[in-house]
């Protein structure tokens, strides 16, 4: 479980997050949604520790992360996997080297053990035969798969995904979404996904938090969204005329 209590964050006097309290459950795919510039990426980066909140506390299970020192935080960070929007693979390393890096740095496994673990993770994300390719030689979907493999290689307890579907076609997006959901259930991870892809919301949104202008505006599941009368949420989720008609049909 990851919990944020009264989180506020400003940049150069501009408030981006305003008193947000939220709880994300273990074994579920938790989604943060919102318009571009609503503060969802800042919320995700604050939860993961890349930004320090101006106010509020963040809990990883029972541990208050915001009150930890550098060394204790480092220990928790080894339990965190993160998938960045662009993949954030190291350009000068091959697929195998990218996935193996956390094992090289934080385990005392032999080369054979590390290689076996890397192969397992690459198979798990259904990426084989690309071991010695560099990120520049991979497609967008392959980059995301490598990023997922690297994120899970150390068996994380917490998985953060920043717009994992950006730049992908709808079919590949669904594959990546399902992969993240499967991994979440299989390893009982607390997964938080930051997205504005409505396909993802409807596909894997077990718990959804809608951020609007730096505030937590709404929370619920993908089924609740269909029945919600929250105007801002409906304007965001059912933005097109076709989506509005679809919702009216469902409500009827």
């Amino acid at each position, binding site marked *: 479980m990851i919990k944020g209590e009264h989180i506020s964050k400003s940049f150069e006097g501009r408030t981006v997050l305003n008193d947000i309290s939220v709880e994300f459950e273990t074994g579920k795919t938790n989604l943060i949604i919102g318009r571009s510039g609503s503060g969802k990426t800042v919320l995700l980066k604050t939860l993961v520790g*890349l930004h320090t909140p101006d106010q509020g506390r963040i809990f990883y299970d029972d541990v208050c992360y915001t009150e930890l020192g550098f060394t204790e935080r480092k220990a928790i*960070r080894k339990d965190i996997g*993160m998938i*960045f*929007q662009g993949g*954030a693979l190291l350009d000068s390393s091959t697929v195998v080297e990218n996935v193996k890096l956390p094992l090289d740095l934080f385990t005392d496994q032999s080369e054979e053990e590390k290689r076996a673990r890397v192969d397992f993770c690459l198979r798990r994300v259904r990426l084989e035969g690309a071991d010695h390719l560099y990120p520049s030689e991979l497609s967008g979907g392959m980059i995301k798969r490598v990023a997922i493999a690297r994120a899970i290689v150390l068996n994380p307890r917490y998985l953060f995904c920043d717009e994992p579907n950006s730049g992908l076609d709808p079919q590949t997006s669904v594959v990546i979404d399902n992969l993240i959901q499967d991994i979440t259930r299989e390893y009982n991870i607390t997964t938080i996904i930051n997205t504005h892809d409505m396909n993802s919301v409807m596909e894997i949104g077990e718990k959804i938090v809608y951020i609007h202008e730096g505030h937590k505006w709404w929370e619920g599941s993908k089924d609740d969204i269909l029945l919600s009368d929250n105007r801002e949420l409906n304007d965001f989720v059912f933005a097109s005329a076709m989506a509005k008609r679809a919702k009216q049909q469902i409500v009827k």
Partner: protein
Amino acid sequence: MFKIFEQIGRYCQLMGKVFSIPEKPGIYGRRIMYEMEALGFNSIGLTAIISIFIGAVITLQMAINLESPFIPKYLIGYATRETMILEFSSTVVALILAGKVGSNIASEIGTMRITEQIDALEIMGVNSASYLILPKVVATVLFFPLLTLLSIIIGTIGGYIIASATDIMIPAQYIEGLFYCFRTYSIVYSLIKMAVFAFIITSVSAFCGYYANGNSLEVGKASTRAVVASSIVIMLFNLILTQLLLT
């Protein structure tokens, strides 16, 4: 003025992170070898080409300007050697490397910053400053003095070639000048200077790249800042080191 002190403070903080205890020294060994090839070995060609031409030009200039029956010809070889050892092969080569290697480091690390690769390392619990910058610093501090030695040797060979190819002097006189009043300490001084300059080029350029933010334009600006700042600091330390080591 306040901004300069702020930048120096941030630079010192970054160096504190860079020189903190590494997670796995074995990993760093491999990365140092990689950086030696990328930053040092790949600079041999440029250093050699520039050194051979500068050595030849210095010899020609000396021959033209020391045209006098009262000045022995071997002094041309002596002057070429001293110029190469004392200034060119350390300071000028360092300035050239600041352009080549410095901009490379700043743009590489800057790109890693804006594409969130550094954030990814931090999330993994890796000390990104140490992991990315320390191998580059160690590699250049160890390798660049070898480039200085190479530059001295090739520069003096360039002088010999021009002396042999033209009628400005007898090559034997040039060789005599090369060994005239030779002091080993001059070489040591040159190597010490280059080791310090290597540290400056790498750390200042890495600093500029590490704190780049925004888009590719910012990476370009960081790269330019790296070359300018490294060059200025090199000139400042050239003065300080010369005062400390030669007087």
